[in-house]
């Protein structure tokens, strides 16, 4: 029966599963997503990619799909959704559902956590039914899944129980349908992951690059639009294939660099690009990663990626986390690595460790039009925006709070920033001077600065910057200031909580050793990107994308030598360092 259901799901290009009287429809698998976007950012927290009506205040076009019912009749209907800004006001992300063109009365998106909102019963009168999602607000209504059942038994609400139920309803086996083997599997297609892929591919490795978005570049992509900062180090040729101009953060010009980056990465035949694939598991055995499992974010198709070595460029460090790699999170005490800076005291490095890390950003941009436009009053945004007025965002639109975890609470962080943005824009629009401005673009992807930091054979700290330590394995170099952020409301309570300030420590050139780019306890795991081995303050400088790109390129070249000698990353430092450093030195001269 399960096999049969699975065949139907594939046939419809939807992830729907059907028992005799039960059908689960994953919203992200809708045949036509209309104006809704697939949001896969929070799968690990809430269980699935979902569809979101990100209309910046304008209702988006309906999403639609078709479902085959085995039996006509009366079905109970549940919709998994949430009210993303709960409070004493009308929920901002409301939507309706239509079945074969007939709207169901209930309005969805009203419950203050991910849950199945029950819509009572509905009569299914034909075996092929069209379902539509109808956005009512333009403000980020979201739908994870729709469930029809002839039994009045609500699905599990969350956690493992829901995951198991979903697996069962979708007829999924415990292992992915397909397995593919590569020389190197890189998860995360930000600048670090792209650089790793290019460097390894140029050395002849067959590379899988798994990325959960349609566009490469991560924070540099035209979906997030942060410009690349830092220096090229020894990898100018590679990094210029994927970097950005220094346009203002949030600029539409990001699209030109996006085209360049996508074209350049795709030109490598031995880079197997898996766009819109999100890793959901990795297994290690005896401290060796065996595989990474990933899922297509819309169709739900799954694949197992096998390789002798893996690169974690996910930013949040998911591969290493699943594989059991040691990592740290939060701010170390100032004494742990000698990172105090008296000038800034607790704002820089605290006496006692805590989890007050640098925050995440959502960038946004306006457009000046010929015609006046209005923007609605938004009661659900005002308690966040307070009186703040703005017509565009910049890097300092950043949110961190000591009860929020940058990974576990990422959706709440993103939503908080959206409320800050919409509320600030609504305030600004009340001014005569802004009557011609309208929202051109608001990212719905949260641009993170800091999350898990793996622990390698060397932990890069502020001391390495202060001492300008030249390591025998210095593979990354940087001259950019160490810049650590704090929330403005920590020193001035009148400021809104979504704005930050930066503290800059000016420095001469500093170096990052190769030993910070592989795990100390998972023998075949590299890391490149903000999840490299460093302290909180150590991350302050090298977290920008040309520096993380250097890490990626260094890792890609190391992976090539690992293959040549059939060794793990650590052995490159212990046994092949001279050859490795020569390879780095000469990589700019190579033509491919």
């Amino acid at each position, binding site marked *: 029966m399960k096999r049969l259901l699975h065949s139907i799901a594939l046939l419809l290009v939807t992830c729907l599963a059907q028992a005799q009287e039960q059908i689960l429809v994953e919203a992200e698998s809708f045949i036509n997503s209309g104006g809704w976007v697939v949001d896969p950012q929070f799968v690990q927290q809430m269980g699935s990619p979902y569809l979101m009506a990100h209309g910046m205040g304008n209702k988006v076009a309906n999403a639609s799909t078709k479902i085959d019912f085995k039996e006509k009749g009366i079905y109970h209907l549940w919709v998994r959704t949430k009210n993303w800004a709960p409070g004493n006001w009308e929920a901002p992300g409301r939507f309706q559902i239509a079945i074969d063109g007939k709207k169901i009365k209930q309005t969805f998106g009203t419950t203050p956590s991910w849950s199945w909102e029950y819509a009572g019963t509905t009569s299914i009168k034909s075996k092929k039914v069209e379902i539509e999602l109808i956005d009512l607000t333009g403000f980020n209504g979201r739908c994870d899944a729709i469930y029809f059942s002839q039994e009045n038994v609500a699905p599990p609400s969350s956690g493992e129980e829901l995951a198991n139920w979903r697996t069962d309803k979708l007829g999924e086996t415990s292992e992915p349908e397909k397995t593919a083997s590569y020389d190197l599997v890189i998860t995360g297609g930000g600048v670090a992951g792209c650089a790793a892929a290019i460097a390894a591919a140029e050395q002849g490795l067959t590379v899988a690059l798994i990325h959960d978005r349609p566009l490469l570049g991560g924070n540099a992509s035209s979906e997030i639009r942060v410009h690349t900062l830092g220096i090229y180090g020894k990898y100018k040729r590679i990094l210029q294939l994927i970097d950005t101009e220094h346009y203002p953060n949030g600029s539409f010009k990001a699209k030109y660099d996006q085209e360049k980056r996508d074209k350049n990465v795709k030109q490598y035949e031995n880079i197997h690009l898996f766009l819109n694939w999100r890793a959901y598991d990795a297994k290690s055995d005896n401290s060796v990663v065996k595989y990474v499992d990933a899922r297509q974010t819309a169709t739900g198709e799954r694949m197992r990626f096998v390789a002798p070595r893996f690169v974690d460029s996910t930013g949040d460090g998911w591969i290493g986390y699943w594989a059991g790699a040691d990592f740290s999170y939060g701010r170390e005490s100032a004494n742990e690595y000698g990172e105090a800076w008296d000038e800034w005291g607790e704002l820089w490095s605290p006496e006692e460790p805590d989890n007050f890390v640098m925050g995440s950003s959502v960038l946004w941009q306006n457009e000046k039009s010929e015609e006046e436009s209005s923007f609605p009053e938004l009661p659900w945004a005002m308690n966040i925006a307070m009186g703040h007025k703005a017509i565009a965002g910049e890097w300092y639109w950043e949110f961190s709070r000591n009860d929020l975890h940058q990974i576990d609470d990422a959706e*709440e962080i993103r939503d908080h920033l959206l409320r800050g943005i919409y509320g600030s824009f609504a305030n600004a629009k009340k001014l005569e001077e802004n009557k011609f401005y309208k929202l051109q673009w608001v990212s719905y992807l949260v641009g993170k600065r800091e999350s898990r930091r793996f622990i390698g054979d060397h932990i890069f700290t502020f001391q390495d910057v202060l001492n300008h330590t030249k390591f025998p394995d210095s593979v990354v170099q940087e001259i950019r200031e160490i810049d650590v952020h704090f929330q403005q409301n920590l*020193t001035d*309570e009148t400021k809104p909580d979504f704005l930050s300030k930066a503290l800059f420590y000016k420095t001469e050139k500093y170096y990052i050793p190769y030993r910070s780019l592989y795990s100390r306890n998972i023998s075949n795991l590299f890391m490149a990107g903000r999840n490299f081995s460093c302290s909180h303050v150590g991350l302050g400088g090298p977290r920008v994308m040309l520096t993380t790109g250097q890490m990626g390129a260094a890792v890609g070249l190391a992976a090539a030598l690992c293959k040549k000698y059939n060794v793990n990353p650590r052995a490159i430092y212990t046994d092949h360092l001279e050859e490795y450093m020569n390879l780095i030195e000469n990589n700019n001269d190579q033509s491919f």
Partner: protein
Amino acid sequence: MTSHFRLLIFILLITTGFRFYEKNTREPLHFSMKKEWQEITLAENKFSFLGLDSIMNHMVQLLSNELNQPRLFYCDLETAVCADGECRLARIKIYWNLLGNYVGYGIHSDEPLTKYDHDPFIKDDYDKLHRLFLDNNSVLRRKTMYELVDKVPIDPKSKEKYNDVDGLSSATKKDIADAVVKGGLYSCYTLWHLIHGEAKEKMKSYLKSIESDSLNTYFLYSDYKDYQLHALKYLSKEEFTKHSSQVTKIFKEAQPMTRTYILKKMPDEMLGQKEVSKNLYNDFASVGINSRTQLVNRLKAASDDAPSLVSNHLNILTRNQLKSYLQFFDDNPEKLTESIALKLNQAAKSKSLTYGYLVEQFLDND
């Protein structure tokens, strides 16, 4: 005391670096502390620091009151302000507090500060100058003069220009325009760096040489937030408890960062004191969201009244704070009093509590 003896003392003091304080000549134009400068009776030359030109040395004086208690650092600065190869002298009298933080300045009435085009500063310019000197994280801090020139928009009303970013450190042109007096970039830059540069470091070093329990007590019981934080850091955890009354007083009025620091450092035994707990948790609603998180997370160490005081504010708890609060009762069921249980029951039924479903789940599992 004979007049000869007085003269001898005067000569001795002069030759050893002491100066009698001349109030009239040192009156600040802007001063962020109270009236400390008026209490000064003694000025001692302590150290000098080098100007940006690496030529001119500036003498810093320690100013003390009649009880010989140090209160301020002071320097009557004369510095060259150079632009396009042309240099002019600027004179300004700078006050720092004992931590080396800028607190005020004065000018010589016959030597006003001037702008690039030689126009004298007007009142608004002097006011802004004080504000920008107070900003120790000014964009001027990390910029060279070369990097700043041409970054200030010609037309300050132009939004397009303001929204452009400077290529070096993502500072917007508006940031830079905000950090200087219009037309006075060179003066602002030069003076800011003199105030926040080597002089400040030397004051900090000097403070270390005179630090004492009595001076720290002055800091702790002063009304100045930077002094209070400095004093709190100086105290050991045991001494923290000794000054519990003042520490909780500071907590009420401090900026959020200091509150966070206090709650992290406060030993369990101090938080467990009924009076301390009552003071802290009574202010639960007004202490800011980050301190509320800490207060919820430290309920175990707090006195028995604390969980009940928090229960009065269920409506302002964030989702994670409420989770932690309910987890506290899972871990410490004996703390769930009847009155708290009643409030939780009411909260679960209330439609106005945003995260009431969490309370409902908690009660269902109980």
